[in-house]
C-alpha cells in the first residue's frame, strides 16, 4: 500500500497501479473523471487539491470570522482543532470510515462516487442507460473482438457512472436525455422495448422517452427520402409487432388456472405453488405430445378406418378400467393402425371425409404425391415427438440449473434471510403469521450457529448415528428389493396364468379381464405404502437439516420407482414381446399399451385414495380424535415424484397407445382440481423452509434423466430390435419398426433414381451406428464444454470478488490519503494566514 498517490491529473492515477489488470482502467478512469468534474465545478485550475482546499479554507474562514477577531481565542481554538485532528486520526485507525469525521470536501467526493449515485437521481439513471444503449448499439453494429469492448461491458466493472455527472443541472440533464432518446431511436424495436421495460423510471417518464424516440423515428422516416423497400420494411415491422402483441394477449387470455394459482400462492407461498406449476409443465408436455400424435396418427387413421376382421365386443363398463375389450380395436392402440398408404385426397377439392368410406374406389385414382404412408408417419411422429420433447427438457433443465446453482452459496446467509426470505406472494393472514414465525426461528437458529460453532459429536455418538443410518438404509433397500422381487414373481405368475387360460376356453370373460387389473393394483399399492415406510425410517434417523432429509427421501423413492419400472419393462419387452403367441396374443403391442393404460389409471385412482384417506380423513381424524391443532403439511417432494412416475408411464406408452397423452392430460387436469381443493381444505402452510428454485431444478432433472431417458431408451429398444406383431399394426411384416424408414427410402430410390443421394445419406446417417456414436460424442463434448465454461465463470466470480474487496481497500486508502493531504494543507495555511493577520 506504499504507493505514492498523487491527485494531480497530469500524473494520472492509473500509473500508480501498474500491476493492476486492464479491467481496472474503468474504475480509475471514472475516478479521475469524477475528480476532473469536481474540479471543473469548482471552475479554475487543473491542480485539484490546491484550489479545492482554497475554496474550503475560504468557506471555513468565513465561518470563523469570530476567531479571527480575537487572536488569543483563535490560538486556543487551533490547539483544540489540532487535538481534534489527532483524535480523529486515532479513531480513523480503529474505524477508518465513519463519515461524520470527514471534512466537507472529502464528503463531497464521497457522495459523488459512482457507486453512490446509482438510482439516486433521474439524471444518473438516464446517463447510465445512455451508456447501455451505446454499448448495445455498438455491439449490434458489429461484433467486435473482446478487446474492443469497453471495460464497463465486462462483468467486472459496471457501467454505472461512466459518464455520470454529479451535477443534476437542468442543462446537462436535458442533453443526456436528448442523447438517450437518440440512442433509443437507433435501436431495433425489440431492443428498445427491452431497454424501456428494464429502466427503473416511472411509466410516465418511459412513455415520454418512447414518444420522443418514436417521433424522431417518424421524422427521419418522413424527412429523408427513404427507398421504398426500407419503408416497406418499416411498415411490415409495425404490422408484425401488432400481430405479435395480439397473439401474446390471446395467449395470455388462455393462461390456465390464473386465479387458482394465485389463491394457492397467496395461502401457501412459493413452495406448494411449485408443485402446481410443475403439474402445469407436465400438462404442457402432454398437450404437445398429443397434438403431434393426434394430428399425424390418430386423425388420419380415424378418418380412414380400416376394415375390421370381426365384430366388436360389447361395452361392459369394465373397459374404462382395463382398457381392453371394447377399446381394444380402436384408434387407442397400435394394433388398429394399418400398414398401407392412406390416400388423403384424390379429387382436387381435397375432400378428405367423402372418400374415407370408399377406400377401394379411391385406389384407382391414386396419386403418389398425396398419399400418406402410415408406417412411416408412425415412425417419424414418435421419433420427432421424442426428439422435440428432449430438446425442450434439456433446455429448461439447463436454464433452471444456471438459475439456481449459479454461484456458490457460502456467504451472506443471514443477509439473504433478512432480505430475500419474505414471500411477497403470500396474502393470507394466518400464513403471513406463520411465515414470520418461521423466519424468526430460522434467524435464531442461524444466530446460534454463528455464535457457537457446532459442537463436535463424540466418537460414540458418531458411531451410533452411522449405525442408525445404516439400519435405515438397510430397511429401505431390503423392502424395495422384496417388493421388486415380489412384482417379478407375481408378473411371472400372471404370465403363466395367461398362458394356461389361452389354451383353455375362457368361461367368464369379465373375470378374466378383471384379473388383468391385479398387477397394476399391486404395483400402485406398493407405490403408495412403501413411501410411508421410508418416512418412518427417516423419522427414526432424525436428520438435522431439512434439505438432507428431503434429498434422502427423494433418493429412496426414486430407487423404488426406477426398480419397479425396470422390472415392469422387462416383463413387457422381455416376456410378453418375446413370445406373444404363448399367451394367445395376436398383437402384443396393443396388450402392452393396455397394460400401460391400466397402470396410469390405477396410479391416478390410488393418488385419489391417498388424497382422500391420507389427507382428508387423516386430517379429520387428527383434528377430531387426537385434538391436534396442526393440520398435515403438503408433501411436495412425494407428490412431485408421483407426477414424474405417471409421466414416465405416459412416455413409455405413447408408442403403443398413441392416445395415452390425452388420458394423461385428463388425469392431470382432474388431479389439479382435486389436489387444489384438498390442499385448500386439509393442509396448512409448510413449516420447513423450502428452497424452491433448487428443488425445481432437481425435479426437472429427475424428469429428464431417469424418467424421460429411461422411457426413450425403452422406446428406442422396441423400435430397433424387437420384432413387431405379424398380423396387426403399422409395422406388420417388418423385422423391426425401424425398417419402415429403410423400406421407404429404398422404394423412393427405385421410383426416382435421382434421389439416390438421399438414400445413401439415410443409410449412412440412420443405419450406421457410427453416426449415433458421433452424435452422442458431440453431445457429450458440448456438455463438457458447458461445464467447463461454468467452472471458469465460477473462478472469474471469485477473482472478481477478490478484486472488489481490493478496490474497497484502495478506496479506503485513497480517501484517508485525501483527507490527510487536506488536513496537511489546511493546517499550515491556517498558520500562515493567522500570522499575516497578526
Amino acid at each position, binding site marked *: 500500500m506504499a504507493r505514492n498517490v498523487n491527485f494531480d491529473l497530469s500524473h494520472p492515477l492509473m500509473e500508480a497501479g501498474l500491476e493492476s489488470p486492464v479491467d481496472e482502467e474503468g474504475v480509475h478512469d471514472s475516478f479521475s473523471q469524477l475528480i476532473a468534474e469536481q474540479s471543473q465545478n469548482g471552475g479554475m485550475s487543473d491542480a485539484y487539491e490546491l484550489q479545492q482546499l482554497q475554496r474550503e479554507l475560504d468557506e471555513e474562514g468565513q465561518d470563523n470570522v469570530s476567531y479571527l477577531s480575537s487572536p488569543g481565542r483563535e490560538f486556543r481554538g487551533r490547539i483544540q482543532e489540532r487535538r481534534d485532528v489527532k483524535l480523529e486520526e486515532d479513531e480513523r485507525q480503529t474505524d477508518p470510515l465513519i463519515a461524520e469525521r470527514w471534512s466537507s470536501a472529502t464528503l463531497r467526493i464521497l457522495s459523488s462516487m459512482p457507486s453512490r449515485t446509482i438510482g439516486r437521481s433521474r439524471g444518473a439513471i438516464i446517463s447510465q442507460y445512455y451508456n447501455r444503449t451505446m454499448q448495445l448499439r455498438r455491439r449490434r453494429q458489429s461484433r467486435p473482438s473482446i478487446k474492443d469492448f469497453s471495460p464497463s461491458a465486462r462483468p467486472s466493472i459496471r457501467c454505472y457512472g461512466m459518464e455520470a455527472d454529479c451535477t443534476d443541472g437542468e442543462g446537462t440533464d436535458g442533453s443526456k436525455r436528448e442523447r438517450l432518446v437518440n440512442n433509443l431511436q437507433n435501436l431495433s424495436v425489440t431492443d428498445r422495448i427491452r431497454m424501456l421495460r428494464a429502466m427503473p423510471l416511472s411509466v410516465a417518464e418511459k412513455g415520454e422517452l418512447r414518444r420522443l424516440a418514436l417521433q424522431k423515428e417518424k421524422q427521419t422516416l418522413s424527412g429523408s427520402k427513404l427507398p421504398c423497400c426500407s419503408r416497406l420494411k418499416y411498415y411490415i415491422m409495425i404490422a408484425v409487432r401488432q400481430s405479435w402483441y395480439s397473439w401474446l394477449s390471446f395467449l395470455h387470455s388462455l393462461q390456465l388456472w390464473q386465479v387458482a394459482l394465485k389463491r394457492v400462492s397467496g395461502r401457501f407461498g412459493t413452495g406448494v405453488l411449485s408443485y402446481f406449476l410443475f403439474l402445469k409443465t407436465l400438462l404442457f408436455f402432454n398437450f404437445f405430445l398429443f397434438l403431434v400424435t393426434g394430428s399425424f396418427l390418430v386423425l388420419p387413421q380415424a378418418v380412414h378406418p380400416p376394415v375390421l376382421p370381426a365384430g366388436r365386443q360389447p361395452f361392459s363398463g369394465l373397459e374404462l378400467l382395463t382398457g381392453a375389450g371394447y377399446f381394444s380395436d380402436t384408434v387407442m392402440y397400435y394394433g388398429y393402425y394399418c400398414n398401407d398408404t392412406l390416400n388423403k385426397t384424390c379429387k382436387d377439392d381435397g375432400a378428405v371425409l367423402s372418400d374415407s368410406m370408399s377406400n377401394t374406389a379411391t385406389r384407382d385414382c391414386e396419386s403418389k404425391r398425396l398419399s400418406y404412408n402410415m408406417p412411416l408417419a408412425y415412425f417419424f411422429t414418435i421419433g420427432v415427438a421424442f426428439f422435440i420433447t428432449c430438446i425442450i427438457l434439456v433446455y429448461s433443465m439447463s436454464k433452471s440449473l444456471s438459475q439456481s446453482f449459479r454461484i456458490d452459496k457460502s456467504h*451472506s446467509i443471514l443477509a439473504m434471510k433478512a432480505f430475500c426470505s419474505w414471500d411477497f406472494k403470500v396474502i393470507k393472514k394466518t400464513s403471513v403469521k406463520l411465515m414470520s414465525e418461521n423466519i424468526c426461528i430460522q434467524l435464531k437458529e442461524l444466530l446460534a450457529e454463528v455464535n457457537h460453532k457446532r459442537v463436535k459429536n463424540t466418537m460414540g455418538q458418531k458411531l451410533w448415528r452411522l449405525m442408525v443410518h445404516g439400519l435405515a438404509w438397510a430397511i429401505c433397500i431390503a423392502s424395495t428389493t422384496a417388493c421388486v422381487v415380489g412384482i417379478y414373481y407375481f408378473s411371472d405368475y400372471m404370465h403363466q396364468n395367461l398362458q394356461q387360460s389361452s389354451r383353455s376356453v375362457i368361461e367368464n370373460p369379465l373375470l378374466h379381464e378383471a384379473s388383468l387389473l391385479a398387477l397394476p393394483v399391486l404395483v400402485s399399492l406398493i407405490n403408495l405404502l412403501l413411501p410411508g415406510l421410508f418416512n418412518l425410517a427417516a423419522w427414526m434417523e432424525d436428520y438435522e437439516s431439512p434439505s438432507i432429509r428431503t434429498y434422502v427421501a427423494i433418493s429412496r423413492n426414486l430407487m423404488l420407482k426406477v426398480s419397479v419400472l425396470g422390472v415392469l419393462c422387462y416383463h413387457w419387452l422381455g416376456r410378453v414381446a418375446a413370445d406373444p403367441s404363448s399367451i394367445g396374443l395376436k398383437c402384443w403391442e396393443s396388450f402392452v399399451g393396455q397394460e400401460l393404460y391400466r397402470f396410469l389409471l390405477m396410479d391416478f385412482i390410488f393418488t385419489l385414495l391417498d388424497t382422500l384417506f391420507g389427507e382428508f380423513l387423516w386430517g379429520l381424524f387428527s383434528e377430531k380424535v387426537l385434538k391436534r391443532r396442526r393440520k398435515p403439511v403438503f408433501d411436495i417432494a412425494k407428490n412431485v415424484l408421483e407426477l414424474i412416475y405417471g409421466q414416465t408411464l405416459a412416455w413409455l406408452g405413447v408408442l403403443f397407445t398413441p392416445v395415452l397423452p390425452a388420458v394423461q392430460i385428463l388425469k392431470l387436469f382432474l388431479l389439479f382440481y382435486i389436489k387444489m381443493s384438498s390442499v385448500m381444505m386439509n393442509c396448512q402452510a409448510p413449516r420447513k423452509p423450502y428452497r424452491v428454485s433448487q428443488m425445481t431444478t432437481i425435479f426437472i432433472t429427475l424428469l429428464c434423466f431417469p424418467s424421460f431417458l429411461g422411457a426413450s431408451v425403452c422406446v428406442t429398444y422396441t423400435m430397433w430390435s424387437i420384432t413387431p406383431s405379424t398380423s396387426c399394426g403399422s409395422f406388420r411384416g417388418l423385422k423391426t419398426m425401424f425398417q419402415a424408414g429403410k423400406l421407404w427410402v429404398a422404394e423412393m430410390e427405385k421410383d426416382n433414381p435421382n434421389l439416390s443421394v438421399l438414400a445413401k445419406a439415410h443409410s449412412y446417417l440412420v443405419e450406421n451406428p457410427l453416426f449415433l456414436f458421433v452424435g452422442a460424442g458431440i453431445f457429450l463434448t458440448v456438455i463438457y464444454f458447458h461445464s467447463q465454461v461454468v467452472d471458469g465463470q465460477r473462478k472469474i466470480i471469485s477473482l472478481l470478488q477478490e478484486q472488489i474487496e481490493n478496490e474497497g481497500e484502495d*478506496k479506503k486508502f485513497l480517501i484517508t490519503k485525501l483527507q490527510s493531504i487536506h488536513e496537511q494543507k489546511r493546517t499550515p495555511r491556517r498558520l500562515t494566514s493567522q500570522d499575516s493577520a497578526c
Partner: protein
Amino acid sequence: MGNKQTIFTDEQLDAYQDCTFFTRKEILRLHGRYHELAPHLVPMDYTNDPDCKLPLALIVNMPELKENPFRNRIVESFSEDGMGNLSFNEFVDMFSVLSEMAPRELKAIYAFKIYDFNVDNYLCKEDLEKTLNRLTKEELTPEEVELVCEKTIEEADLDGDNKLSFADFENMISRAPDFLSTFHIRI
C-alpha cells in the same frame, strides 16, 4: 369494465405495453382494480391523462398488499412524491416491477428502495432493524436484532463502510436464486 376504447386510446395501450411487462388486457384489468379502490375518484376515461392520485391508505388496503409487512414502503417507493400517493401510472409501475417477467436488476433496485426506510440510499443499521422487526413481527429481542444487524452488514458489506450500498445489495441478491420468485406479487 366498459369497452376498452373508452378507457385508453390505442396509442396509450401501446405505450403501456412497451414500457411495462403487461399486455393490453392486464393493463385494463389493472385499471379496473385501480378504479375499484375509489370509484368516485378514478375516472373511467383515461384518454387525456387525468391528474388523479389515490392516497396510500386506500392502496394499502388491496388484498395483495394488506398483510404485507412492507406495504407502506412498497407504495411509498413507487410514488413520485414519496408520501405514498399513487397515480395510475405509478400503480402500473408498481405491479410491473413486482410481476413475474421483471428482470432481476430492476427488482433489486426497487427492493433496495423498499428496504431503505430512511431514504438515504444506503441500507444502514436502522433500516435493517426496521426490516427485521417487520419480518418477525417484533418477536426477536433487541439484542438479537442488534446481533443480526451486525452480522448481516458484516457479511454483505464489501467496501467496508459499515452500511450496504446498492452494489453490495445487488451482489447479495444475485446469490439468492429464490429472490426472483419471491419478490413477485400476482395481480
